[in-house]
């Protein structure tokens, strides 16, 4: 019990963040994280726990692809909620800020979605502090290709994001005119 407690304390937040960034849905991320730790509980003790946890989380993301249709409906519902929240906030002066923030998030989302699965997973795992061997083990890559994968993933993410922002700025000007 103590072991899972420690594991949870140490890795729950990173795993949730990894999943949330990957899925764009915090609730779902929490859910999959819970499943990850439930599985960990059944497998204790783990030899390479961080790598194990992220590998399981990564596999759960894949499984989640099967529940595609249902998830889309769920997303729609949540997005509806979010836009309602937004409507209320529009009454305040922070409207503009909030909208910018949301737009940036949408761009970030688009950019991360535009990466290949392997690039995306490698980048997100690296952001959670996994080392090259752990990333390689989780994704079934050779450790030697992780560096290339990461540099490509980052470059592409930033390029797409910045292009989106530029595009928005250009469009914004057009809208005003």
């Amino acid at each position, binding site marked *: 019990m103590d072991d899972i*407690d420690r594991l949870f*304390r140490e890795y729950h*937040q990173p795993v949730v*963040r990894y999943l*949330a*960034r990957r899925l*764009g849905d*915090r*609730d779902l991320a*929490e859910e999959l994280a819970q499943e990850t730790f439930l599985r960990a509980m059944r497998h204790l003790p783990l*030899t*390479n726990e961080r790598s194990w946890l992220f*590998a399981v989380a990564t596999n759960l993301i*894949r499984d989640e*692809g099967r529940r*595609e*249709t*249902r998830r889309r409906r769920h*997303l729609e519902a*949540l997005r509806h909620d*979010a836009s309602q*929240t937004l409507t209320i906030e529009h009454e305040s002066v*922070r409207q503009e*800020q909030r909208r910018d*923030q949301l737009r940036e*998030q*949408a761009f970030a*989302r*688009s950019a*991360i*979605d535009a*990466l*290949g*699965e*392997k*690039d*995306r997973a490698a*980048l*997100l795992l690296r*952001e959670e*502090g996994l080392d*090259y*061997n752990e990333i390689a*083990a989780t*994704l*079934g890559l*050779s*450790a*030697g290709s992780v*560096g290339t994968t990461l*540099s490509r*993933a*980052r470059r592409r993410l*930033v*390029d797409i994001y910045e*292009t*989106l922002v530029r*595009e*928005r700025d250009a*469009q914004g000007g057009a809208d005003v005119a």
Partner: protein
Amino acid sequence: MSHNEMTPDDTLQIVWTDAGHPDEGSLQTWLDDAFDAASGAQVQAHVGGCVVCQQAVATLRGYTAAASRILGALDDAPGGVVAREDTAKAAAAIVAQAGMRTRAEQKAAKAWYTRPAFRVAAALALMAGGTTWVMSRSTEVAVSTDVSTAAGADAAAPAVAAPAVAAPAAEAPAVQAPALAATAQPLADVATEKANVSTATTPSTTLPMAAIAKAADVAAPVAAEMVVAAEPMAQARKATARIDSASPANVSDPMVSGRAMATMAAMAASAPTVAPSPRTVIVRGTVRDGSTQRPIGGVQIQATVSGSNAPARATVTSTSGTYSLPISGVAPNASIRIAFRRIGYTLAVATRTVASDTLVIDQTMTTSVLALGEVVTAAQDARREKAAVPPTRLLASTPAAQDFSGRGVAGGIARGVERTSPARINTRNDARRDIGGNREQYDKIDDNPFLVVSVNPRSTFSVDVDRASYSNVRRFISQGQTPPPDAVRIEELINYFPYDLPSPRGNAPVSITTETMTAPWQPKHRLVRVALQARRIETAALPPSNLVFLIDVSGSMNQWDKLPLVKSSLRLLVDQLRPQDHVALVVYAGAAGLVLPSTSGEEKAMIAAAIDRLEAGGSTAGGAGIELAYRTAREHFKPNGNNRVILATDGDFNVGASSDGDMERLIESKRAEGTYLTILGFGEGNYQDAKMEKLAKRGNGNYAYVDDIAEARKVLVKEMGATLVTVANDVKLQVEFNPAAVRAFRLIGYEDRLLATEDFTDDKKDAGDMGAGHSVTALYEVVPTGVTSTITLREQDSLRYQVPSADAPRASAARNELMFVRMRYKTPGEGTSKQLTQAVIDTGRGSASSDFRFAASVAAFGMVLRNSEHKGTATLRSALEMARGARGEDEGGYRSEFVGMIGRLIDSERR
């Protein structure tokens, strides 16, 4: 995909380009510190003397920081979901600019994923990936021996470019794929990856375009279905294998492609079937108020599965009324029964049969005049203790019988608690031991004992405006745990709640209010309330603050004395903010990001929510963070205000792209622009004192090491008090008891704030501060003279030389004067204290205010949690009932929340 164990000899090798430089991947590996020492040194040596590589390294660093920042933006989404609107249109343009050919007319009006063309494109790209992989194998393109989809896709990428771009049906969707891939996830990923790779590589396909186009036509109907339903990775693998068996020559044959498609479609059809074995079912939904349709937070949800003797699963709805509860081992077609409980609402029950992996149960609840959940509770207890207690007496203390003004409640509760059986107390202790594995550290608190007035006539302590213990206790209870006794600081629980106290008169910054009533847990004792209310002052004249907190959320901050302490410190500060003050939060770790844009001090809830969301994780890269922080400060620069970046870190401040020297120059230049830097160091072990001090000095700022919340208060509240509104410094209270009226007394709480009698008048002795609008409540439990046998006093010989004051009371002291309150405080900026006094007269008549009764209920609750030897007849139930009867107007709903919280604790302890 399998999880490979790494072998120890799997070391990383530097890859050199033909031009004699390490390739980009190797540079990245070096930057990520993944090489062993020898290889690392080799790269370092090369980069040191190579301008080309230095340039490349700078670029990589830039991309690394920017990527982290972009990803960080995803962590704070309203409703937890990042919207994808607004970008489909723009996504088209990206690819155009990135060099991909695209058609001008984008049909952006229609959602991307509803367009069959996209699906075909995805399928096509997948297929082409498979086919060209086969081809590339025969032409010696490096492919890992592990026949995985990823490796196949990689090798196939160059060849795929042409079809993805050229096939007319595929063109537009492929372009949009970047923005949209998330929904049609892994399959689309494969397509997208191809498309992306094509931007960088020269198309070298040998596939006839016409064949591909035709294949697309054949595939269209099935592909559309497949994208939605298939298990894409597995499929891709199978499809690859399937095509593998075909000869490269046949690949160009549309019929072969069509066959591959048909195979995939068949697999797609079979993929989503559900295995008829026990599985995990997720129950989720939203709970709303039946009449207002507003979401209800804090609803207790309990799920039981038919035909299963597994314990009930439980959760609580979020503030937006949503819940999600995974239940494992549910047999197919089992039915799940969900009970919804919330104080103030009628119990609602929903029973559903499990049809899929997710069960959505939205529930409305109707308000009840009686708090039904609690009546149920009481009834169950009645059964348990029937032998000892006639049920009729029990009913007297149920809400039904309770006067909402709260009169007479105390008596009822006092009766109620006699029923507490020793067995129940033991249960509590057991529950408490369960959380022994918890790593949180709390100093041991020993309850203040009763002191005999003849020996100890005075009680002296420093005020404490902290309230952190309450939220901590609440956290435990919301997780279904009983808080550990030492986490319960009763004064912090009491002070959490706002009370309606008179504002100070004249020049005094603080008013004193006193009141007496019967101690609810010991009817022979009196309870005295001493409440201080600080002036609510006009603050318009004070300079506004523009604060940007730059918070290290790297993995090393994930310790109780680091990020959690940063968060509670920030909360202290937030309490002090005024509407004209602005605060922003920037975090850095692997990610540097704006967690909270500059926000007015008026919107405390929003700031507090952002603070609550801070989490530790990732590696440290401070460079991007500090630049972002300064930029944020600059954007909201207040010309006459206090513009300041406050860095909170454990010292592991890695400056990323720039050197320490660059960092110092940056800080200096910002200081010249009027933005200062304060550094707060947290934690132990990783703390880099010298570096912090150096940086802070450059920023015209101070730096401080924060090891506990008292230090945080000192730094953030007191020393930054020039701009944050403290109205009284070093506030001390001293109460002198009248031996003619009081035999003994006990201060409830403030155990670690006690002062020696002589410290009261010693202005050098530090004490708590009060900010504008703060209130502080202290409760004394008093044993009147003539009352014996209620407590065991550690009697001492009375003083030999001191004339007992009972024999010679001051002429001015009334006989029924219980005690005399003295308060000393300093006006901020002054060195000597002023004093305020007030006598407390106990008439023993009249009813106590709801504020007082509520505070007493909180104290009783705290004593029960602490299992205090002085708790007398107090129980959770008696505290609950007293609190419910003393909610008053309850502005902000804090008291109702408290009532709900005790209810939950009672429920969870019963389980």
